[in-house]
Structure formats: structure tokens, C-alpha cells
């Protein structure tokens, strides 16, 4: 029998994805003590297996302040986490497949003017000239020159490593299986190995955040989704832009090595932790990919995968203080788009801890929105 290790710190974090890890880093930069518990390896879940799109374009306007903040963080990635993580401001192009798509891209551009995304609409002859590799169904699109892409496998673990170097106590392979609060202090227990006591708790457990929220009487309609990813063998480089399609469906980018990474459709959850890309989803994605990029007709795909991501019905995250428990802050439910804004969400969580408020508007992400009409009496799960 090994005796349980007990430690006391300022902030305990559950989850070492990009959100929890960047919060840990930001807290350390403020001189605040941190213990982060990750049941697997940091950055091995959504944050490490996602598509790698680092884009602001297309986000709801309410997310743009946060996305702008993240944009600035991404711009100084090497000095922050010690690697560029293959981050490139290579441009993000959102494709229109019809005139009405084009109209909605135009609408988005005018609505987002305040945020200085620098969107440029391209169509007709200029479209063919700038991207001769694009399939015939595209009629135009919207380019955000400063959006781009990065390698999630490298970026997300690097945030955790940077936090650790900055003095955070990072416990990988430590699942939090018990959380308690005595009115002043939180207690987190990981099996018989570790017990952490802290006055502040950050719930950054990604798709698995629901139980912790529920534990504090804040059940939210969080569900898991499994976006499908496919990667081809390396091909001669032909495309810089990261691509999306208005209305969704498929996205793609070509990485430095030459492989095309493609995403779209829903995968299969083998169990709570393991996911697969099903062959029907692969078939649909493959057909769409060839339509979008005819050059892929002769390529092989060498791997498929999926991940487990937490979605909320309005596709907005929960980011902010608990409504029931002082000292508890949530940061989860990024609904398929948390890689780009993750680092800003981490900074916001750190600000909330230190200052009690965020310097970036986060009102739209309040957990209150799920309890609007109800009294604040605890609801059973």
C-alpha cells in the first residue's frame, strides 16, 4: 500500500487539453500556484487530434473578441511555448458553392468589419487564377489572409510542457475521480495516488466536463461528437490556404510535409474514450474531397481518425464562473472550434481567478444561459 500524496496549491485544474494547459501557463505567469491533473497525456484528446484549423473567420460575432485575443497569442507562440508548432498564417478560405453562399459570406464580412479580420471576397476569373486547383463547384469564397493552421499534435502538448517549465505541477495519467468542496476548499482525488487541495478549481475536462458541472448542481446539455479526419499520402505542394466550405460539410489543408488533412462528417464512438471514422463517413468525405480538390482523385489516403469533442446545443462554449460555487470556473464545450480560441480561453480563466473578471467579453458563454428560467435551486442530474 502506497501512501497517498497530498498537496495544497492555489488553483487545481482538471484536464490538460489546450484550455487547461494554457490556463495553467497563464496562471504561472501571474505567479499563481497550479496543479493540473490529466487522466491521459496532456494534449492527447481533442486538442491533439483535431484538424489544426486556426481560424477566426466564420465564428459567431460573440466569439470574435476572444478569437482576436487568441490570434495575438498565436502570433507569439514560439516565445510563449518554445515551438512554432508548425503554425502558419497561410490564409483561410471559406468556399461558396452558390450565389446564396456568396451572399452570406458577404453578409458575414460586413457584420464582422469591426473586428478587422481583413476578409476579402474572391470570385469568377480571379478565383480560377488564384486557385486553379479548386473544383468546378466553387463559385467564390472569402479569404482571411491572417488566419491559418497549426499542428495540434505539437502545439497542445507544448502548452502543457511550457506550463510545467513555468512551475505548474502537471500530473499526467492522473484521472480525477472525486471532487469535493467544503465551502472554502476544493479537494480532488486521483485514485490512491494523489489528493489536491485548492481554493480554486478549473473545470477544463473537455467532452468529459459534464459530470463535474453536475457535481456542483449545474447540469448542462453537453454531448459528445466525433468529427471524422482523413489524411492522404504526401503530395507535391499545391495549396497554402486552409479551406472550409460555407454551410460546413468539409474542410481541408495541406501540411508542410505535403499530406492533405481532410475533415467532415461524424465518426463512431467505440466507447467513451475511443473513436473511429466509419466507412460511410469516409466515403462521403472522400467524394466531397475530390469534388473540392480534383487533384485528390489520384491520391491514396493512409489514415483516418476521429476524436471526442464536447458540444453544447448553441455551439458556444461554457466559459466563466460557476453559478453555484465560488472558486469554481468552467472552460469547456468548445463545440468543434476550441483549438484556435483555446489559448485565449486559458488566459481568460487565469484572469477570472486573479481579478474576478475577464478583460475580454465572455457574456455569451455564461453557464447561466442554461438556467435562465429556472430558480437557482439545485436540480437533480
Amino acid at each position: 500500500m502506497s501512501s497517498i500524496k497530498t498537496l495544497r496549491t492555489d488553483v487545481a485544474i482538471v484536464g490538460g487539453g489546450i484550455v487547461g494547459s494554457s490556463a495553467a501557463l497563464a496562471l504561472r505567469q501571474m505567479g499563481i500556484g497550479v496543479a493540473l491533473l490529466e487522466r491521459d497525456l496532456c494534449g492527447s484528446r481533442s486538442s491533439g487530434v483535431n484538424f489544426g484549423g486556426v481560424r477566426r473567420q466564420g465564428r459567431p460575432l460573440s466569439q470574435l473578441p476572444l478569437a482576436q485575443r487568441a490570434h495575438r497569442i498565436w502570433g507569439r507562440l514560439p516565445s510563449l511555448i518554445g515551438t512554432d508548432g508548425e503554425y502558419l498564417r497561410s490564409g483561410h478560405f471559406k468556399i461558396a458553392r452558390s450565389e446564396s453562399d456568396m451572399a452570406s459570406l458577404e453578409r458575414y464580412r460586413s457584420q464582422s468589419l469591426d473586428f478587422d479580420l481583413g476578409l476579402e471576397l474572391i470570385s469568377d476569373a480571379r478565383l480560377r487564377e488564384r486557385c486553379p486547383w479548386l473544383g468546378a463547384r466553387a463559385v467564390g469564397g472569402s479569404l482571411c489572409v491572417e488566419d491559418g493552421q497549426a499542428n495540434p499534435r505539437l502545439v497542445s502538448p507544448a502548452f502543457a510542457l511550457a506550463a510545467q517549465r513555468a512551475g505548474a505541477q502537471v500530473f499526467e495519467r492522473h484521472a480525477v475521480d472525486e471532487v469535493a468542496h467544503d465551502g472554502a476548499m476544493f479537494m480532488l482525488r486521483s485514485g490512491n495516488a494523489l489528493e489536491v487541495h485548492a481554493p480554486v478549481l478549473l473545470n477544463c475536462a473537455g467532452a468529459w466536463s459534464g459530470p463535474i458541472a453536475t457535481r456542483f448542481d449545474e447540469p448542462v446539455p453537453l454531448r459528445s461528437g466525433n468529427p471524422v479526419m482523413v489524411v492522404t499520402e504526401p503530395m507535391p505542394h499545391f495549396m497554402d490556404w486552409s479551406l472550409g466550405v460555407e454551410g460546413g460539410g468539409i474542410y481541408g489543408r495541406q501540411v508542410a510535409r505535403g499530406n492533405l488533412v481532410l475533415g467532415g462528417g461524424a465518426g463512431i464512438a467505440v466507447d467513451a474514450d475511443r473513436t473511429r471514422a466509419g466507412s460511410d463517413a469516409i466515403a462521403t468525405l472522400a467524394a466531397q474531397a475530390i469534388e473540392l480538390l480534383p487533384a485528390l482523385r489520384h491520391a491514396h489516403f493512409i489514415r483516418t481518425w476521429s476524436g471526442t469533442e464536447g458540444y453544447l446545443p448553441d455551439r458556444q462554449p461554457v466559459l466563466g464562473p460557476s453559478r453555484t460555487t465560488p472558486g469554481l470556473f468552467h472552460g469547456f464545450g468548445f463545440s468543434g472550434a476550441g483549438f484556435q480560441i483555446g489559448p485565449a480561453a486559458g488566459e481568460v480563466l487565469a484572469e477570472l481567478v486573479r481579478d474576478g473578471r475577464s478583460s475580454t467579453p465572455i457574456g455569451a458563454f455564461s453557464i447561466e444561459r442554461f438556467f435562465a428560467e429556472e430558480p437557482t435551486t439545485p436540480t437533480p442530474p
Partner: protein
Amino acid sequence: MTASCALQPVIVGAGPAGVRAAEALVAHGLRPVVIDEASRAGGQIYRRPPASLAQRSAQALYGFEARRADAVHAAFDALRERIDYRPDSLVWNAHGGRLDVLHGPTRSTSGVPYGQLIVATGATDRVLPVPGWTLPGVYTLGGAQVALKFQGCAIGQRVVFMGTGPLLYLVAYQYAKAGAKVAAVLDTARLADQLAATPAMLRQPAVFAKGVYYVAWLRAHGVALHSGVRPSRVLGDATESRVDGVAWHDGREERTLACDAVGFGYALRSETQLADLLGCRFEFAPLHRAHLPVRDAAGRSSVEGVYLAGDGAGIMGADAAEWAGERAALALLADHGVAVDTARAETLERKLHKLGGFRQGLERAFPVPSDWAAHAPDELVVCRCENITAGTLRQTVSVNGADEMNRLKALSRVGMGRCQGRMCGVAAAEILAHATGLPLQQVGRLRGQAPIKPIPIQLAACEPAGDAGA
């Protein structure tokens, strides 16, 4: 026989295991689907040349194995009309009672539903690379043998065989017999290993005698045999465009020898991707130095309805593959209420069990060099698809703290190319274990995902959506 009418068994692999499994199912009135990537049945050891090539005799192709090869081929030919045989067909994905199959010649994919599945996917070479192994003219032992058996050609005029395992001497013998000049056989195992293993190996005197025969024959025909060597590198010619020789350390000094081709390998590794996709539970098997899908004595996997037979679930050799194939088929039948000959099932299990002891002996006689990782130089290319060196892997451990295979892959790209770790995974795991100081089993194994081998995007797109089961 009402139970059997409802059965819908599919066998993947038409090697000795798959053929005997099919035979047993047919004998009980079933008509299994047999899917095989190869164009003709026989599997690896009894691989048949394409029908278009001039027929060589079984004796010429399989030597001592000719009788068994003939028997397996004859068994298959007799079944041919009583099974649903799908050659040239690669199973590239599996889920929810359906296999996704790519049919090579017609370039089409389809979904094949199954009720019960026998996985008999066999093995490929275990590769522990040596500097220079990516030079043209370097083959795996299995590859060298396939060239001879299947295409009827040698990999070079003056060939060195290097590594360890029973295949080392066998392939050298087959090359020499076929008229190729075998410059030398370099075995990393020591003579002492082989002597120590003799008692265990004598459990299969016939097989043991064959091994002794190959060695004696090679020696009598003037082939230089060196044991206890440590390969240092494959040498290239002036322009590094072709093999020019090999260098090795014999314990005292570095030695070199000229040659124009090299066959190398360290026994075999199981092809476990399909079992992985099917969700079978894996465990580390110390004897095989690998994580393998767990099977009971009869071949049942941890997944209901999925059975494992032959080298695909642990290297036991061709005879064992035949027994295991038949045994798994009997288990499948019995599990679904079909009466089977239980005495036969017991006999098969006993034979398989007995072979286990011999298998341990083989591992002792031809141990994977335990110091391979320690001696692999930093500049050695481990992953040839992505050009990842041993040094990069070590750095990923020391700088980024990788201590598990999937993390090593994520950070370094090892195993991220076309082979998805099928070739480089073994070596990468050895390097990782050595660099971290962890036992091999603890560094884990690469997660499997579809496709099992690369698939043309266009073909995946053609597939009828919403097919059975998925």
C-alpha cells in the same frame, strides 16, 4: 443443422490457417467467404507464383515443405467451388459486422457483412534496421524469399543474408540451391544460444533436423557462416545508389564483405491491424516481444464471434497455422450449436500446446539482439516513409518526455507514413524502451485505425453508402 444455416462465416487470409479453417467449415456444410489480398491461395510460406509464370515444381519452390505445400494447395483446390473465394481483395476496415474490401483488379470497394469472422492474416518480417538499409538492393528476408518464390528471380548476384531467425538459413539455402551466390550468412545469435536451445527444439525433431540440415548444407557448399555478429552498416557504392557490401562487428573487430544485395530480418511479426480494428483485446507477449490479440486455446478472441488463427496472433509457424485454423473453425461451429468432433479439437489443442515449447526454443536459439537499440547510431533512419532517425526519437524522449508509442509518433512523425508503423513500429518501440529505460511492454503499441493499407481516395468515394450493418 438448422444452426449452421444461420451462420455467415468470413475468413480473412488464405494461408495455411485460413485454408484449413475453410476446409473444416465446408466439412460441416457451410459455405464461408474467404477473402485474401493475394491473387492465389497459399499464404506466405506456400505462396504460389502467378499462373502466368512457367510452372516450377513444388519441390523446387518449397523444398522440404513441398509435401505440405501440395497438401494445402490441394485442400484449397478441392474447396474452390464450395466457398465464396475473393482473391486480390484487401480488407481495409472493419466495423459493426461489416468488412470493407478493396478489390484490386476491378478497383472497387464493397462492404462484406459477416456473422462470424476468422482472422488469419499471417505475418511479415520483423525489421530492425541497420545504417544503409534504405539503399537499393536491400530487402527483408521475406521479401527476398517472395522474389524467389513468386517472381522466380534473385535479389542480386552476390547476396549477404543478415539478422537472425530460422528464415535466415532457410532463405540462404533456397538462394544457394537456386544458383545464386550467397556471399555469407551473418547471424546475430551466438552459437551458444543455439546449443542452449537444442533440448527445447528437439520437441520438434523433424523441424529441428531441417534447420540443422540447412546449416550443414550451406557449410558444405562453402558458404561463410558467421554467428554472434553485430551488423554495423550496409555499404553503398561511390554514388550511394546501390549496395556495395556490408560491414559488421564480430566481437573483436570490424569486418567488411563485398556484395550487391542484402536480405535481412529478425524473424517475423504478426499482422494484427484487423484484430485491432475489430476491438480485440491485446496483451504483451514476452515470447514474441509484441502486443498481440489475446486468444484462448481454441482461437476465440475477446470479441464474440471473432476468432484468431495462425501467425496473425503470434508467430507459431505454418504447421501450427494449419492446426489453429482448423481448431478455430471447430470452435466457431461449436459456439453456434453445430456438433463437432471434440476429440479432434482436443488433439489439435494438444499439438498446438506441444509446439509452444519448441517455439520457446526457437526464440532462445535466435534471440532478437537485446542490445540492438543501444547500438543503433543516432543517424540511423528508423522510419523510412517519414525519414525519422533514431536520434530524433531519442531527442523526442529527452526533450519532450515521450514515454509511450503514440506520443512518440505524435511528436516525431515516426510511423505516420504509408506503412503506418507496420515496418518501423517494432524498431521504434525498441528505441523508445531503451531511451526511457522502460520495459518494452510499458511503451505500448501504436493505435490502429483504418485503412489497414493505403486506399485510393477515389475508390473509397465509390462505396455504396449505408451498406449492411454499419
